[in-house]
């Protein structure tokens, strides 16, 4: 994951050179840099939530509070593997585009969006069938707010992918040289993926 981000970054700086004059105001395209800064900032939101969860875990005498039903792990584990796999699927889409294969991009991105949708459905199924509600106790509240906030990010990611698919119908909108939208959607998706792994450990595994 780390490796692939660094790769992308170096590609951006190399590729932006010839594009220098095509940017909006005649300067090189800095959008990828801006995206990275945004993601650093966004990760601080999750850090805030995680910190709150860890503090509760440390100060509440029994964690999760007594009477919290066991979390069903089967669906979350399937969901986790779907989300992790989707990152690799998505990367194939970008690889295809780099070989000027727009059809390939569309196929792989469509699969990624479908996997994201399945993840969201799994999450929804879990919400409807869990034995506790938002206000049952502190753990339940943390569970819903954290997974819900992450779910919003997954939904944003799916919408980003769908908008990439929509735009890719135009000829030459994304080329092997210029495809900020594709790359940005992918970086964002990897980010959401990594956040999920941390969240999965903190919420499901070590409670």
């Amino acid at each position: 994951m780390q490796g692939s981000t660094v790769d992308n970054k170096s590609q951006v700086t190399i590729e932006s050179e010839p594009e220098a004059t095509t940017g909006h105001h005649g300067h090189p395209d800095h959008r990828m840099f801006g995206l990275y800064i945004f993601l650093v900032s966004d990760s601080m939101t999750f850090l805030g939530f995680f910190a709150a969860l860890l503090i509760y875990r440390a100060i509440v005498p029994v964690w999760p509070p007594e009477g919290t039903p066991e979390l069903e792990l089967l669906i979350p584990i399937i969901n986790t593997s779907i989300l992790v796999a989707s990152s690799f699927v998505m990367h194939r889409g970008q690889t295809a585009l780099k070989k000027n294969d727009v059809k390939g991009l569309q196929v792989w991105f469509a699969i990624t969006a479908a996997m994201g949708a399945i993840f969201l459905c799994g999450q929804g199924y879990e919400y409807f069938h869990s034995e506790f509600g938002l206000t049952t106790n502190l753990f339940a509240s943390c569970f819903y707010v954290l997974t819900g906030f992450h779910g919003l990010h997954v939904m944003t990611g799916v919408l980003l992918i769908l908008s990439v698919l929509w735009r890719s119908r135009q000829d030459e909108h994304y080329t092997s040289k210029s495809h900020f939208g594709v790359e940005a959607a992918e970086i964002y998706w990897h980010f959401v993926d990594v956040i999920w792994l941390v969240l999965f450990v903190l919420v499901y595994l070590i409670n």
Partner: protein
Amino acid sequence: MSTTVEKIVPAISDGHKEHPQRKWQDYFGFSTDHKVIGIQYLTTAFFFYFIGGALAEVMRTELATPDPDFVQPEFYNQLLTMHGTIMLFLWIIPAGAAFANYLIPLMIGAEDMAFPRLNAVAFWMIPPGGILLLSSFFNGAPQAGWTSYPPLSLVSGKSGEEIWILSLLLLGTSSMFGAINFVTTILLMRIPDMDIHSMPLFCWSMLATSGLILLGTPVLGAALILLSFDLMAGTAFFNPAGGGDPVVYQHMFWFYSHPAVYIMILPFFGAISEILPVHARKPIFGYRAIAYSSLAISFLGLIVWAHHMFSSGTPGWLRMFFMATTMIIAVPTGIKVFSWCATLWGGKLSLNSALLFAVGFLSSFLIGGLSGVMLASVPFDIHVHDTYFIVAHFHYVLFGGSVFGLFAAVYHWFPKMTGKMVNETLGQIHFVMTFIGFNITFLPMHQLGLQGMNRRIALYDPQFQTLNIICTVGSYILALSTFPFIINIIWSLMKGKKAARNPWRALTLEWQTASPPIIENFEGEPVLWAGPYDYGIDQESIDGDESVEDMLATISAEGQ
């Protein structure tokens, strides 16, 4: 490189014929021009400053007598909450962003910010956020103070509190979008000749500020989302009645809100570092020391938050840690104050409004900084916690520091922004009244705090009345002091003397273009022919506006 030069040349000859100027309508619409956005930020900030100031005057009038006879205590609580929130989130922070937006691209020789549209979006979140916040007055404004500690905030009026949360989420997002722009622009869009150690110190301070905004604001967002769930959905994150812990909110809140203090002062540290060398005609003392101390402040600023919580039952080891880090932060701040004094030392001062406010900033901020070190020490802090000593301290930092710095910046860059000179006499009257009013208002509060007068309460023990009357009188002087300022701004805009390109004979790049700067800032790429602070080095040849232009012509001729 040569291709870009060719690209720019036709654009210049186009602009040269017409020199299109912004129409006044542009300032009311969705403009992506960083200069328009900068002015929009600044005027919006001033609009809210006057509202926040009016609220403060009502509070001071109430506090002239020990009994709550002028306003009801509930309304007093609303006033203090709104005064704090407006002054921090709708005045100081947007005003810092105003100068950053206006100056950064000009200082580094760029045409605009890196993401002009994002920039406009960031600005246009502020008026809705502000109007939303003010609208809460119709429905019972929040009463829990700008800190909104639960459980108080959970029991003191639902709708007002939720409006407060939503408004802050809007304003916080706006400030984050701004920061993304500042960092990207400063790091990636300087003209090729300008390396990071020859960029103006204002850019360094905005880099430090933006880092804090990007790392801190999201955590406040998380805290507010959780608080919102407690308020509206009945969860118990911060509600001890349901097993939650209010101290967790305090940690998350101060993780942002202590750095926020530096978000509010660092831009004006930067402005002061620009203003002093120009009006003292001396190179800045210790460029790198000032630059790196900004970064040091922003790093340390992230690990001092619990000094606001010494009386919240924090364990002893935690108090020791935060006491130590808080005191350490005095070191980079001291380096700055020392460097500014050394810059002034032996300089050829022109005591105009900008420099007066800058010196006023130095002296008042020093008092605020020193009382900050006093408050860092746990025993003293516990003694004066929640008293007027705290109020005195942060007004010396925020008013004596940020606001004085802000006015210095307004006087310094007004000619550049508007193309008109300000009236010096009115400016100096403004300074004298502000400085006197400010000290009469806030200096006695130290004493009140030491004697144990509680803050945030409408009624108080009659023994404190004399000092309170003095404070109230001071606050009226402060209110009056804004009139010379307003008259000066309006008069100068209408009838002011036309400002030349470089009225202060300053060396940073924004003074190389017309006043006000042309759209897209420069006719061709600006030439970096001196360091930003090389004053007094070649006095004879740099004399007045004309010769700067001559020199530029010579240098660009040599370059070709």
